[in-house]
Protein backbone atom coordinates (compact mmCIF):
# COMPACT_ATOMS: atom_id res chain seq x y z
CA UNK A 1 0.00 0.00 0.00
CA UNK A 2 1.13 3.57 -0.59
CA UNK A 3 2.80 5.32 2.29
CA UNK A 4 1.58 8.24 4.33
CA UNK A 5 4.08 11.02 4.93
CA UNK A 6 3.66 13.31 7.92
CA UNK A 7 6.34 15.74 9.00
CA UNK A 8 8.81 14.05 6.69
CA UNK A 9 8.22 10.61 8.24
CA UNK A 10 6.93 7.74 6.10
CA UNK A 11 4.22 5.68 7.77
CA UNK A 12 3.00 2.29 6.63
CA UNK A 13 -0.03 2.27 8.89
CA UNK A 14 -2.85 4.72 8.37
CA UNK A 15 -4.49 3.94 11.67
CA UNK A 16 -3.56 6.16 14.62
CA UNK A 17 -4.83 5.12 18.02
CA UNK A 18 -5.52 6.78 21.35
CA UNK A 19 -4.64 5.44 24.79
CA UNK A 20 -7.40 6.87 26.98
CA UNK A 21 -10.43 4.96 28.19
CA UNK A 22 -8.84 1.48 28.29
CA UNK A 23 -9.77 -0.83 31.17
CA UNK A 24 -6.07 -1.31 31.89
CA UNK A 25 -2.83 0.12 30.60
CA UNK A 26 -1.47 -3.40 30.39
CA UNK A 27 -3.59 -4.15 27.34
CA UNK A 28 -2.13 -1.27 25.31
CA UNK A 29 0.99 -3.09 23.99
CA UNK A 30 -1.20 -5.90 22.62
CA UNK A 31 -3.57 -3.41 20.99
CA UNK A 32 -0.65 -1.64 19.32
CA UNK A 33 0.75 -4.94 18.09
CA UNK A 34 -2.53 -6.27 16.75
CA UNK A 35 -3.33 -3.20 14.64
CA UNK A 36 0.29 -2.42 13.68
CA UNK A 37 -0.19 1.26 14.32
CA UNK A 38 2.91 3.46 14.30
CA UNK A 39 1.50 6.58 15.92
CA UNK A 40 -0.09 6.62 19.36
CA UNK A 41 -1.64 9.63 21.04
CA UNK A 42 -1.90 10.21 24.77
CA UNK A 43 -2.94 13.05 27.03
CA UNK A 44 0.24 14.58 28.39
CA UNK A 45 -1.59 15.42 31.60
CA UNK A 46 -1.91 11.70 32.29
CA UNK A 47 1.79 10.96 31.81
CA UNK A 48 3.39 10.34 35.18
CA UNK A 49 7.15 10.05 34.88
CA UNK A 50 7.50 9.56 38.64
CA UNK A 51 5.60 6.29 38.90
CA UNK A 52 6.96 3.45 36.82
CA UNK A 53 3.97 1.14 36.99
CA UNK A 54 1.48 3.94 36.44
CA UNK A 55 3.50 5.65 33.69
CA UNK A 56 1.64 5.26 30.42
CA UNK A 57 4.87 5.65 28.42
CA UNK A 58 6.09 2.33 29.83
CA UNK A 59 3.35 0.60 27.86
CA UNK A 60 4.19 2.10 24.48
CA UNK A 61 6.97 0.34 22.52
CA UNK A 62 10.01 2.47 21.79
CA UNK A 63 9.65 2.33 17.98
CA UNK A 64 6.21 3.97 18.11
CA UNK A 65 5.90 7.68 17.36
CA UNK A 66 4.39 9.42 20.37
CA UNK A 67 1.73 11.96 19.63
CA UNK A 68 1.15 13.72 22.96
CA UNK A 69 -2.01 15.81 22.95
CA UNK A 70 -2.78 19.04 24.74
CA UNK A 71 -6.04 17.83 26.25
CA UNK A 72 -7.01 20.09 29.13
CA UNK A 73 -5.90 23.25 27.33
CA UNK A 74 -8.63 25.89 27.26
CA UNK A 75 -6.78 28.32 25.01
CA UNK A 76 -3.76 28.62 22.72
CA UNK A 77 -1.45 29.73 25.49
CA UNK A 78 -2.14 26.65 27.60
CA UNK A 79 -1.81 24.36 24.57
CA UNK A 80 1.60 25.88 23.82
CA UNK A 81 2.72 25.39 27.42
CA UNK A 82 1.63 21.75 27.39
CA UNK A 83 3.38 21.13 24.07
CA UNK A 84 6.64 22.55 25.37
CA UNK A 85 6.35 20.42 28.50
CA UNK A 86 5.79 17.36 26.32
CA UNK A 87 8.98 18.00 24.42
CA UNK A 88 10.90 18.70 27.63
CA UNK A 89 9.61 15.42 29.07
CA UNK A 90 11.11 13.51 26.16
CA UNK A 91 7.92 12.83 24.20
CA UNK A 92 9.43 13.95 20.87
CA UNK A 93 8.34 16.86 18.71
CA UNK A 94 4.99 15.63 17.41
CA UNK A 95 2.04 17.32 19.06
CA UNK A 96 -1.70 17.01 18.64
CA UNK A 97 -3.34 20.31 19.46
CA UNK A 98 -6.56 19.97 21.37
CA UNK A 99 -8.01 23.23 22.59
CA UNK A 100 -11.38 22.71 24.20
CA UNK A 101 -13.18 25.38 26.14
CA UNK A 102 -16.56 23.67 25.89
CA UNK A 103 -16.93 20.99 28.52
CA UNK A 104 -20.45 20.12 27.41
CA UNK A 105 -19.76 18.67 23.96
CA UNK A 106 -15.96 18.82 24.00
CA UNK A 107 -15.90 20.58 20.65
CA UNK A 108 -12.59 22.16 19.65
CA UNK A 109 -11.99 25.90 19.47
CA UNK A 110 -10.69 26.40 15.92
CA UNK A 111 -9.52 29.96 16.43
CA UNK A 112 -7.32 29.16 19.43
CA UNK A 113 -6.13 26.00 17.67
CA UNK A 114 -4.86 28.05 14.74
CA UNK A 115 -2.97 30.38 17.11
CA UNK A 116 -1.31 27.47 18.92
CA UNK A 117 -0.43 25.76 15.65
CA UNK A 118 1.33 28.85 14.35
CA UNK A 119 3.44 29.27 17.48
CA UNK A 120 4.39 25.59 17.76
CA UNK A 121 5.12 25.05 14.06
CA UNK A 122 7.60 27.93 14.26
CA UNK A 123 9.25 26.19 17.21
CA UNK A 124 9.84 23.11 15.10
CA UNK A 125 6.99 20.91 16.28
CA UNK A 126 5.18 18.56 13.90
CA UNK A 127 1.73 19.92 14.62
CA UNK A 128 -1.44 17.90 14.13
CA UNK A 129 -4.41 20.07 15.06
CA UNK A 130 -7.77 18.55 16.03
CA UNK A 131 -10.54 20.75 14.65
CA UNK A 132 -14.18 21.20 13.75
CA UNK A 133 -14.35 20.67 9.97
CA UNK A 134 -14.42 24.14 8.51
CA UNK A 135 -12.73 25.00 5.22
CA UNK A 136 -11.46 28.46 6.11
CA UNK A 137 -10.12 27.30 9.45
CA UNK A 138 -8.36 24.40 7.71
CA UNK A 139 -6.76 26.78 5.21
CA UNK A 140 -5.50 28.91 8.08
CA UNK A 141 -4.05 25.82 9.74
CA UNK A 142 -2.16 25.10 6.52
CA UNK A 143 -0.79 28.64 6.51
CA UNK A 144 0.07 28.32 10.20
CA UNK A 145 2.32 25.36 9.43
CA UNK A 146 0.27 22.31 10.42
CA UNK A 147 1.63 18.92 9.31
CA UNK A 148 -1.85 17.45 8.88
CA UNK A 149 -5.41 18.47 9.66
CA UNK A 150 -7.61 16.39 11.95
CA UNK A 151 -11.31 17.14 11.55
CA UNK A 152 -13.83 15.43 13.79
CA UNK A 153 -16.37 12.99 12.35
CA UNK A 154 -18.77 13.42 15.26
CA UNK A 155 -18.42 14.73 18.82
CA UNK A 156 -15.63 12.87 20.62
CA UNK A 157 -16.60 9.59 22.25
CA UNK A 158 -20.01 9.39 20.60
CA UNK A 159 -19.20 6.53 18.20
CA UNK A 160 -21.76 8.00 15.81
CA UNK A 161 -19.71 7.79 12.62
CA UNK A 162 -18.86 10.48 10.12
CA UNK A 163 -21.74 12.85 10.70
CA UNK A 164 -19.70 15.74 9.27
CA UNK A 165 -19.19 13.87 5.99
CA UNK A 166 -19.94 16.71 3.55
CA UNK A 167 -17.61 19.10 5.36
CA UNK A 168 -14.81 16.55 5.76
CA UNK A 169 -15.09 15.73 2.05
CA UNK A 170 -14.55 19.40 1.22
CA UNK A 171 -11.40 19.41 3.34
CA UNK A 172 -10.16 16.26 1.60
CA UNK A 173 -10.82 17.86 -1.79
CA UNK A 174 -9.41 21.29 -1.03
CA UNK A 175 -6.62 20.95 1.51
CA UNK A 176 -3.18 19.82 0.39
CA UNK A 177 -2.17 18.38 3.74
CA UNK A 178 -3.13 14.88 4.92
CA UNK A 179 -6.64 14.85 6.38
CA UNK A 180 -6.93 12.53 9.37
CA UNK A 181 -10.46 11.91 10.59
CA UNK A 182 -10.37 12.07 14.38
CA UNK A 183 -13.25 11.49 16.82
CA UNK A 184 -16.65 9.99 16.24
CA UNK A 185 -15.63 6.85 14.35
CA UNK A 186 -17.48 4.08 16.16
CA UNK A 187 -17.02 1.00 13.97
CA UNK A 188 -14.57 -0.36 11.42
CA UNK A 189 -17.01 0.21 8.54
CA UNK A 190 -16.96 3.92 9.37
CA UNK A 191 -13.17 3.96 9.34
CA UNK A 192 -13.33 2.30 5.91
CA UNK A 193 -15.84 4.92 4.82
CA UNK A 194 -13.48 7.75 5.82
CA UNK A 195 -10.66 6.09 3.90
CA UNK A 196 -12.82 5.53 0.82
CA UNK A 197 -13.64 9.24 0.91
CA UNK A 198 -9.92 9.93 0.55
CA UNK A 199 -8.91 10.64 4.14
CA UNK A 200 -5.20 9.90 4.54
CA UNK A 201 -5.67 8.26 7.94
CA UNK A 202 -8.03 7.92 10.88
CA UNK A 203 -7.53 8.20 14.63
CA UNK A 204 -9.59 5.83 16.80
CA UNK A 205 -9.75 5.57 20.57
CA UNK A 206 -13.15 5.07 22.22
CA UNK A 207 -14.36 2.44 19.74
CA UNK A 208 -11.31 0.26 20.42
CA UNK A 209 -10.82 1.03 24.12
CA UNK A 210 -14.42 0.36 25.15
CA UNK A 211 -14.97 -2.74 22.99
CA UNK A 212 -15.32 -6.02 24.86
CA UNK A 213 -12.22 -7.29 23.09
CA UNK A 214 -10.04 -4.25 22.34
CA UNK A 215 -7.19 -6.29 20.84
CA UNK A 216 -9.35 -7.88 18.15
CA UNK A 217 -11.32 -4.68 17.60
CA UNK A 218 -8.02 -2.92 16.90
CA UNK A 219 -7.23 -5.58 14.32
CA UNK A 220 -10.66 -5.10 12.72
CA UNK A 221 -10.00 -1.38 12.45
CA UNK A 222 -6.63 -2.03 10.88
CA UNK A 223 -8.20 -4.21 8.16
CA UNK A 224 -10.95 -1.67 7.58
CA UNK A 225 -8.47 1.17 7.16
CA UNK A 226 -6.44 -0.86 4.67
CA UNK A 227 -9.56 -1.91 2.75
CA UNK A 228 -10.79 1.67 2.61
CA UNK A 229 -7.44 2.95 1.36
CA UNK A 230 -7.18 0.27 -1.35
CA UNK A 231 -10.75 1.04 -2.43
CA UNK A 232 -9.91 4.75 -2.66
CA UNK A 233 -6.78 4.08 -4.71
CA UNK A 234 -8.70 1.70 -6.98
CA UNK A 235 -11.18 4.48 -7.82
CA UNK A 236 -14.69 3.50 -6.89
CA UNK A 237 -17.14 3.10 -9.77
CA UNK A 238 -19.63 5.93 -10.15
CA UNK A 239 -22.91 5.70 -8.23
CA UNK A 240 -26.14 5.98 -10.23
CA UNK A 241 -29.72 6.87 -9.39
CA UNK A 242 -31.24 3.96 -11.34
CA UNK A 243 -30.27 0.37 -11.90
CA UNK A 244 -28.38 -0.25 -15.13
CA UNK A 245 -29.21 -3.63 -16.64
CA UNK A 246 -26.46 -5.53 -18.37
CA UNK A 247 -28.95 -6.48 -21.16
CA UNK A 248 -30.83 -3.25 -21.76
CA UNK A 249 -34.41 -3.35 -23.13
CA UNK A 250 -34.05 -0.19 -25.21
CA UNK A 251 -30.75 -1.07 -26.77
CA UNK A 252 -32.38 -1.57 -30.21
CA UNK A 253 -33.06 2.17 -30.45
CA UNK A 254 -29.35 2.76 -30.87
CA UNK A 255 -28.97 0.22 -33.57
CA UNK A 256 -30.51 2.34 -36.39
CA UNK A 257 -33.64 1.63 -38.48
CA UNK A 258 -34.41 -1.99 -38.99
Amino acid at each position, binding site marked *: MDKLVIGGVELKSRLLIGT*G*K*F*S*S*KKIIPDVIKSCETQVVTM*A*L*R*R*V*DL*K*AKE*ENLLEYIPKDIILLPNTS*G*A*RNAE*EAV*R*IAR*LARAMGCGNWIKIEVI*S*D*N*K*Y*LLPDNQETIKATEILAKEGFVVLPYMSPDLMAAKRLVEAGAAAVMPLGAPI*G*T*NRGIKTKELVQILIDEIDLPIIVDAGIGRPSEAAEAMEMGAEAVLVN*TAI*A*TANDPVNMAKAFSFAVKAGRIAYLSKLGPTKQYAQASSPLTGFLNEGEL
Partner: protein
Amino acid sequence: MSFYNCYEKFKNFDYDSFFEKVTESDILRILNKNKIDQYEFLALLSPVAENFLEEMAQRANILSLQHFGKAILLFTPMYLANHCINQCAYCGYNINNNIKRKKLTLEEIEKEAIAIASTGLRHILILTGESPKDTPLSYIIEAVKILKKYFDSIGIELYPMTEDEYKKIIEAGVDSLTIYQEVYDEEIYDRVHISGPKKDYHFRLDTPERGCMAKMRNVNIGALLGLNEWRREAFLTGLHADYLQNKYPDVAISISPPRIRPHAGCFEDVYPVTDKNLVQYMLALRIFLPYLGITISTRESAGLRDNLIPLGVTKMSAGVSTEVGGHSTDDKGEGQFEISDIRSVEEVKEAILSKGYQPIFKDWMHI
Protein backbone atom coordinates in the same frame (compact mmCIF):
# COMPACT_ATOMS: atom_id res chain seq x y z
CA MET B 1 -28.37 36.57 37.20
CA SER B 2 -27.55 33.99 39.85
CA PHE B 3 -28.57 30.37 40.24
CA TYR B 4 -30.96 31.76 42.84
CA ASN B 5 -33.22 32.88 39.96
CA CYS B 6 -33.47 29.25 38.80
CA TYR B 7 -34.01 28.10 42.37
CA GLU B 8 -36.82 30.60 42.85
CA LYS B 9 -38.69 29.16 39.88
CA PHE B 10 -39.01 25.89 41.77
CA LYS B 11 -39.29 27.28 45.29
CA ASN B 12 -43.01 26.61 45.53
CA PHE B 13 -43.09 23.83 42.96
CA ASP B 14 -45.53 21.04 43.78
CA TYR B 15 -43.17 18.06 43.50
CA ASP B 16 -45.71 15.57 44.83
CA SER B 17 -48.35 16.30 42.22
CA PHE B 18 -45.68 16.34 39.48
CA PHE B 19 -44.48 12.88 40.57
CA GLU B 20 -48.06 11.58 40.73
CA LYS B 21 -48.58 12.43 37.06
CA VAL B 22 -45.43 10.69 35.80
CA THR B 23 -46.35 7.46 33.98
CA GLU B 24 -44.30 4.43 33.02
CA SER B 25 -44.63 5.32 29.35
CA ASP B 26 -43.23 8.79 30.12
CA ILE B 27 -40.10 7.15 31.51
CA LEU B 28 -39.70 4.88 28.48
CA ARG B 29 -40.14 7.82 26.13
CA ILE B 30 -37.55 9.87 28.04
CA LEU B 31 -35.08 6.99 27.98
CA ASN B 32 -35.30 6.93 24.20
CA LYS B 33 -34.55 10.61 23.79
CA ASN B 34 -31.16 11.96 22.85
CA LYS B 35 -31.22 15.01 25.12
CA ILE B 36 -33.57 15.50 28.01
CA ASP B 37 -34.88 18.70 29.61
CA GLN B 38 -35.28 19.73 33.27
CA TYR B 39 -38.73 18.23 33.70
CA GLU B 40 -37.67 14.97 32.08
CA PHE B 41 -34.73 14.88 34.49
CA LEU B 42 -37.17 15.33 37.36
CA ALA B 43 -39.34 12.53 35.96
CA LEU B 44 -36.28 10.23 36.09
CA LEU B 45 -36.00 11.11 39.79
CA SER B 46 -39.66 10.13 40.41
CA PRO B 47 -40.84 7.09 42.36
CA VAL B 48 -42.26 5.66 39.09
CA ALA B 49 -38.80 5.69 37.51
CA GLU B 50 -37.64 3.29 40.23
CA ASN B 51 -39.22 0.54 38.11
CA PHE B 52 -36.77 1.31 35.31
CA LEU B 53 -33.47 1.42 37.15
CA GLU B 54 -31.95 -1.34 35.00
CA GLU B 55 -32.92 0.44 31.78
CA MET B 56 -31.55 3.69 33.18
CA ALA B 57 -28.35 1.94 34.23
CA GLN B 58 -27.80 0.51 30.74
CA ARG B 59 -28.18 3.95 29.22
CA ALA B 60 -26.00 5.61 31.86
CA ASN B 61 -23.31 2.97 31.40
CA ILE B 62 -23.11 3.55 27.64
CA LEU B 63 -22.98 7.34 28.05
CA SER B 64 -20.28 7.06 30.70
CA LEU B 65 -18.16 4.72 28.59
CA GLN B 66 -18.42 7.04 25.60
CA HIS B 67 -17.47 10.16 27.47
CA PHE B 68 -15.12 8.94 30.16
CA GLY B 69 -14.12 5.41 29.12
CA LYS B 70 -13.19 2.68 31.56
CA ALA B 71 -11.24 5.01 33.80
CA ILE B 72 -11.66 6.16 37.41
CA LEU B 73 -9.57 9.01 38.78
CA LEU B 74 -8.31 8.54 42.34
CA PHE B 75 -7.68 11.25 44.92
CA THR B 76 -7.64 11.68 48.66
CA PRO B 77 -8.61 14.47 51.01
CA MET B 78 -6.10 16.02 53.41
CA TYR B 79 -7.57 17.72 56.46
CA LEU B 80 -5.43 20.73 57.39
CA ALA B 81 -7.48 21.90 60.37
CA ASN B 82 -10.78 21.33 62.11
CA HIS B 83 -11.27 24.70 63.75
CA CYS B 84 -14.69 26.11 62.89
CA ILE B 85 -16.78 29.08 63.90
CA ASN B 86 -20.00 27.75 62.38
CA GLN B 87 -22.73 25.99 64.23
CA CYS B 88 -24.10 23.49 61.71
CA ALA B 89 -26.49 20.93 63.15
CA TYR B 90 -25.19 18.03 61.03
CA CYS B 91 -21.41 18.52 61.24
CA GLY B 92 -18.78 17.15 63.61
CA TYR B 93 -16.79 20.39 63.42
CA ASN B 94 -19.71 22.36 64.94
CA ILE B 95 -18.24 25.10 67.18
CA ASN B 96 -20.20 23.74 70.15
CA ASN B 97 -18.89 20.20 69.78
CA ASN B 98 -16.26 19.34 72.31
CA ILE B 99 -13.76 17.70 69.96
CA LYS B 100 -10.01 17.81 69.82
CA ARG B 101 -9.11 20.74 67.53
CA LYS B 102 -5.91 20.79 65.56
CA LYS B 103 -4.26 22.76 62.81
CA LEU B 104 -1.30 21.29 60.94
CA THR B 105 1.90 23.29 60.93
CA LEU B 106 3.67 23.69 57.59
CA GLU B 107 6.15 20.98 58.65
CA GLU B 108 3.28 18.65 59.49
CA ILE B 109 1.67 19.38 56.12
CA GLU B 110 4.86 18.34 54.39
CA LYS B 111 5.04 15.12 56.44
CA GLU B 112 1.42 14.35 55.64
CA ALA B 113 2.06 15.09 51.94
CA ILE B 114 5.02 12.70 51.84
CA ALA B 115 2.94 9.96 53.49
CA ILE B 116 0.07 10.38 51.02
CA ALA B 117 2.28 10.74 47.94
CA SER B 118 4.02 7.48 48.85
CA THR B 119 0.75 5.65 48.09
CA GLY B 120 1.02 6.80 44.48
CA LEU B 121 -1.76 9.39 44.64
CA ARG B 122 -1.16 12.55 42.59
CA HIS B 123 -4.45 14.38 43.15
CA ILE B 124 -5.20 15.89 46.54
CA LEU B 125 -8.12 17.77 48.04
CA ILE B 126 -7.38 19.99 51.05
CA LEU B 127 -10.00 20.72 53.67
CA THR B 128 -10.45 22.93 56.71
CA GLY B 129 -13.36 24.11 58.79
CA GLU B 130 -14.34 27.77 58.56
CA SER B 131 -12.13 29.85 60.77
CA PRO B 132 -10.45 32.84 59.14
CA LYS B 133 -8.45 33.40 62.34
CA ASP B 134 -6.96 29.87 62.40
CA THR B 135 -6.80 29.11 58.68
CA PRO B 136 -6.60 32.39 56.77
CA LEU B 137 -5.97 32.59 53.04
CA SER B 138 -2.25 33.18 53.65
CA TYR B 139 -2.00 29.83 55.50
CA ILE B 140 -3.81 28.03 52.68
CA ILE B 141 -1.47 29.53 50.10
CA GLU B 142 1.60 28.45 52.09
CA ALA B 143 0.13 24.96 52.32
CA VAL B 144 -0.52 24.85 48.56
CA LYS B 145 3.08 25.84 47.84
CA ILE B 146 4.29 22.83 49.82
CA LEU B 147 1.76 20.44 48.31
CA LYS B 148 2.71 21.46 44.79
CA LYS B 149 6.00 19.66 45.26
CA TYR B 150 4.22 16.35 45.81
CA PHE B 151 0.98 16.52 43.81
CA ASP B 152 -0.05 17.28 40.24
CA SER B 153 -3.52 18.50 41.06
CA ILE B 154 -4.66 20.37 44.17
CA GLY B 155 -8.31 20.89 45.01
CA ILE B 156 -9.79 22.85 47.87
CA GLU B 157 -12.84 22.23 50.02
CA LEU B 158 -12.72 25.23 52.34
CA TYR B 159 -15.04 28.01 53.40
CA PRO B 160 -16.60 30.19 50.65
CA MET B 161 -14.31 32.88 49.34
CA THR B 162 -14.54 35.91 47.08
CA GLU B 163 -13.60 35.80 43.41
CA ASP B 164 -10.36 37.65 44.13
CA GLU B 165 -9.40 35.19 46.83
CA TYR B 166 -10.02 32.34 44.41
CA LYS B 167 -7.82 34.02 41.83
CA LYS B 168 -5.01 34.19 44.36
CA ILE B 169 -5.46 30.57 45.29
CA ILE B 170 -5.45 29.51 41.62
CA GLU B 171 -2.30 31.53 41.10
CA ALA B 172 -0.73 29.56 43.97
CA GLY B 173 -1.48 26.28 42.18
CA VAL B 174 -5.03 25.15 42.98
CA ASP B 175 -7.10 23.89 40.04
CA SER B 176 -10.26 22.48 41.61
CA LEU B 177 -12.94 23.82 43.90
CA THR B 178 -15.39 21.71 45.87
CA ILE B 179 -18.17 23.56 47.60
CA TYR B 180 -21.41 21.93 48.68
CA GLN B 181 -24.60 23.86 49.16
CA GLU B 182 -25.46 21.17 51.76
CA VAL B 183 -29.19 21.82 51.29
CA TYR B 184 -30.84 23.85 48.52
CA ASP B 185 -34.12 24.32 50.38
CA GLU B 186 -33.72 27.81 51.82
CA GLU B 187 -35.83 27.22 54.92
CA ILE B 188 -34.06 24.02 55.91
CA TYR B 189 -30.74 25.72 55.17
CA ASP B 190 -31.63 28.43 57.66
CA ARG B 191 -32.72 25.89 60.26
CA VAL B 192 -29.64 23.62 60.17
CA HIS B 193 -27.12 26.45 59.95
CA ILE B 194 -27.75 27.76 63.41
CA SER B 195 -25.09 30.44 63.58
CA GLY B 196 -21.87 31.58 61.94
CA PRO B 197 -21.00 32.98 58.51
CA LYS B 198 -22.32 29.86 56.81
CA LYS B 199 -25.82 31.06 57.64
CA ASP B 200 -25.62 33.31 54.55
CA TYR B 201 -27.51 31.15 52.00
CA HIS B 202 -26.93 33.45 49.04
CA PHE B 203 -23.19 33.88 49.53
CA ARG B 204 -22.79 30.11 49.66
CA LEU B 205 -25.10 29.47 46.69
CA ASP B 206 -23.05 31.79 44.49
CA THR B 207 -19.69 30.39 45.60
CA PRO B 208 -19.30 27.81 42.79
CA GLU B 209 -20.07 30.58 40.33
CA ARG B 210 -17.39 32.82 41.83
CA GLY B 211 -14.99 29.91 41.41
CA CYS B 212 -15.97 29.64 37.74
CA MET B 213 -15.49 33.37 37.24
CA ALA B 214 -12.04 33.13 38.81
CA LYS B 215 -11.27 30.41 36.20
CA MET B 216 -11.06 27.30 38.34
CA ARG B 217 -10.62 24.28 36.05
CA ASN B 218 -12.96 22.02 37.97
CA VAL B 219 -15.86 22.93 40.17
CA ASN B 220 -17.57 20.23 42.20
CA ILE B 221 -20.93 20.86 43.86
CA GLY B 222 -23.45 18.83 45.81
CA ALA B 223 -26.17 18.56 48.41
CA LEU B 224 -25.61 16.67 51.64
CA LEU B 225 -28.22 13.96 51.19
CA GLY B 226 -30.42 13.46 54.22
CA LEU B 227 -31.08 17.09 55.11
CA ASN B 228 -34.18 17.23 52.89
CA GLU B 229 -36.29 14.92 50.72
CA TRP B 230 -33.55 13.61 48.40
CA ARG B 231 -35.47 13.83 45.10
CA ARG B 232 -35.79 17.61 45.46
CA GLU B 233 -32.19 18.13 46.43
CA ALA B 234 -31.01 15.84 43.61
CA PHE B 235 -33.09 17.84 41.15
CA LEU B 236 -31.78 21.21 42.31
CA THR B 237 -28.18 19.95 42.31
CA GLY B 238 -28.66 18.83 38.70
CA LEU B 239 -30.13 22.21 37.77
CA HIS B 240 -27.24 23.98 39.48
CA ALA B 241 -24.71 21.87 37.54
CA ASP B 242 -26.58 22.54 34.29
CA TYR B 243 -26.68 26.28 35.04
CA LEU B 244 -22.92 26.39 35.66
CA GLN B 245 -22.09 24.19 32.67
CA ASN B 246 -24.11 26.39 30.33
CA LYS B 247 -22.75 29.66 31.67
CA TYR B 248 -19.11 28.58 32.10
CA PRO B 249 -18.41 26.00 29.39
CA ASP B 250 -14.66 26.19 29.99
CA VAL B 251 -15.03 24.81 33.53
CA ALA B 252 -15.43 21.08 34.10
CA ILE B 253 -18.41 20.72 36.43
CA SER B 254 -18.87 17.68 38.64
CA ILE B 255 -21.10 16.69 41.51
CA SER B 256 -20.82 14.58 44.64
CA PRO B 257 -23.82 12.89 46.21
CA PRO B 258 -22.66 12.64 49.87
CA ARG B 259 -24.99 11.00 52.36
CA ILE B 260 -24.92 12.05 56.01
CA ARG B 261 -22.61 9.83 58.07
CA PRO B 262 -22.29 9.41 61.83
CA HIS B 263 -20.24 12.23 63.39
CA ALA B 264 -19.49 13.88 66.72
CA GLY B 265 -22.58 15.54 68.19
CA CYS B 266 -25.92 14.18 67.16
CA PHE B 267 -28.41 15.17 64.52
CA GLU B 268 -31.52 13.05 64.40
CA ASP B 269 -33.63 14.88 61.86
CA VAL B 270 -32.37 12.91 58.85
CA TYR B 271 -34.42 12.04 55.77
CA PRO B 272 -33.76 8.49 54.57
CA VAL B 273 -31.69 7.98 51.42
CA THR B 274 -31.33 4.30 50.49
CA ASP B 275 -28.70 2.75 48.23
CA LYS B 276 -31.42 2.42 45.61
CA ASN B 277 -32.17 6.16 45.90
CA LEU B 278 -28.50 7.01 45.51
CA VAL B 279 -28.28 4.86 42.40
CA GLN B 280 -31.37 6.46 40.88
CA TYR B 281 -29.90 9.91 41.54
CA MET B 282 -26.61 9.04 39.83
CA LEU B 283 -28.31 7.47 36.81
CA ALA B 284 -30.73 10.35 36.29
CA LEU B 285 -27.85 12.81 36.50
CA ARG B 286 -25.73 10.91 33.99
CA ILE B 287 -28.62 10.82 31.51
CA PHE B 288 -29.43 14.52 32.05
CA LEU B 289 -25.80 15.72 31.90
CA PRO B 290 -23.70 13.13 30.04
CA TYR B 291 -20.44 15.08 30.43
CA LEU B 292 -20.78 15.73 34.16
CA GLY B 293 -18.15 14.33 36.52
CA ILE B 294 -19.50 12.24 39.41
CA THR B 295 -17.41 11.80 42.57
CA ILE B 296 -18.02 9.04 45.13
CA SER B 297 -16.36 9.32 48.52
CA THR B 298 -15.50 6.81 51.22
CA ARG B 299 -18.69 7.78 52.99
CA GLU B 300 -20.07 4.84 51.02
CA SER B 301 -19.15 1.23 51.74
CA ALA B 302 -16.56 -0.69 49.75
CA GLY B 303 -19.16 -3.05 48.28
CA LEU B 304 -21.49 -0.30 47.15
CA ARG B 305 -18.65 1.78 45.73
CA ASP B 306 -17.45 -1.11 43.61
CA ASN B 307 -20.94 -1.67 42.25
CA LEU B 308 -21.37 2.01 41.43
CA ILE B 309 -18.28 2.11 39.19
CA PRO B 310 -19.96 1.17 35.89
CA LEU B 311 -22.94 3.44 36.58
CA GLY B 312 -21.12 6.65 35.81
CA VAL B 313 -18.59 7.36 38.57
CA THR B 314 -15.61 9.33 37.25
CA LYS B 315 -13.70 10.02 40.44
CA MET B 316 -13.24 8.23 43.77
CA SER B 317 -11.41 8.98 46.97
CA ALA B 318 -9.16 6.28 48.38
CA GLY B 319 -6.98 5.67 51.43
CA VAL B 320 -8.95 8.29 53.33
CA SER B 321 -8.54 9.68 56.81
CA THR B 322 -10.85 12.52 57.84
CA GLU B 323 -8.66 13.24 60.84
CA VAL B 324 -6.34 16.23 60.86
CA GLY B 325 -2.88 14.73 60.40
CA GLY B 326 -4.43 11.30 60.00
CA HIS B 327 -1.76 9.99 57.62
CA SER B 328 1.40 10.91 59.48
CA THR B 329 0.95 11.97 63.11
CA ASP B 330 -0.12 10.31 66.32
CA ASP B 331 -1.43 13.57 67.66
CA LYS B 332 -4.49 13.73 65.40
CA GLY B 333 -7.38 16.16 65.38
CA GLU B 334 -10.81 14.58 65.43
CA GLY B 335 -12.46 13.66 62.12
CA GLN B 336 -15.40 15.37 60.43
CA PHE B 337 -17.35 12.14 60.04
CA GLU B 338 -16.79 8.39 60.08
CA ILE B 339 -15.73 6.90 56.79
CA SER B 340 -17.19 3.63 55.57
CA ASP B 341 -14.74 2.35 52.95
CA ILE B 342 -11.50 1.94 54.91
CA ARG B 343 -9.48 0.19 52.18
CA SER B 344 -5.98 1.33 51.30
CA VAL B 345 -5.16 3.01 48.00
CA GLU B 346 -3.67 -0.27 46.76
CA GLU B 347 -6.83 -2.18 47.68
CA VAL B 348 -9.10 0.33 45.96
CA LYS B 349 -6.84 0.21 42.90
CA GLU B 350 -7.14 -3.58 42.75
CA ALA B 351 -10.92 -3.41 43.20
CA ILE B 352 -11.24 -0.98 40.28
CA LEU B 353 -9.06 -3.18 38.08
CA SER B 354 -11.11 -6.25 38.96
CA LYS B 355 -14.23 -4.37 37.82
CA GLY B 356 -12.59 -3.99 34.41
CA TYR B 357 -11.75 -0.32 34.94
CA GLN B 358 -8.44 1.53 34.99
CA PRO B 359 -7.50 3.46 38.14
CA ILE B 360 -6.02 6.82 37.08
CA PHE B 361 -3.59 8.47 39.48
CA LYS B 362 -2.74 11.49 37.43
CA ASP B 363 -4.99 13.45 35.13
CA TRP B 364 -3.55 16.92 35.43
CA MET B 365 -0.27 18.78 35.71
CA HIS B 366 0.73 22.29 36.66
CA ILE B 367 1.13 24.20 33.41
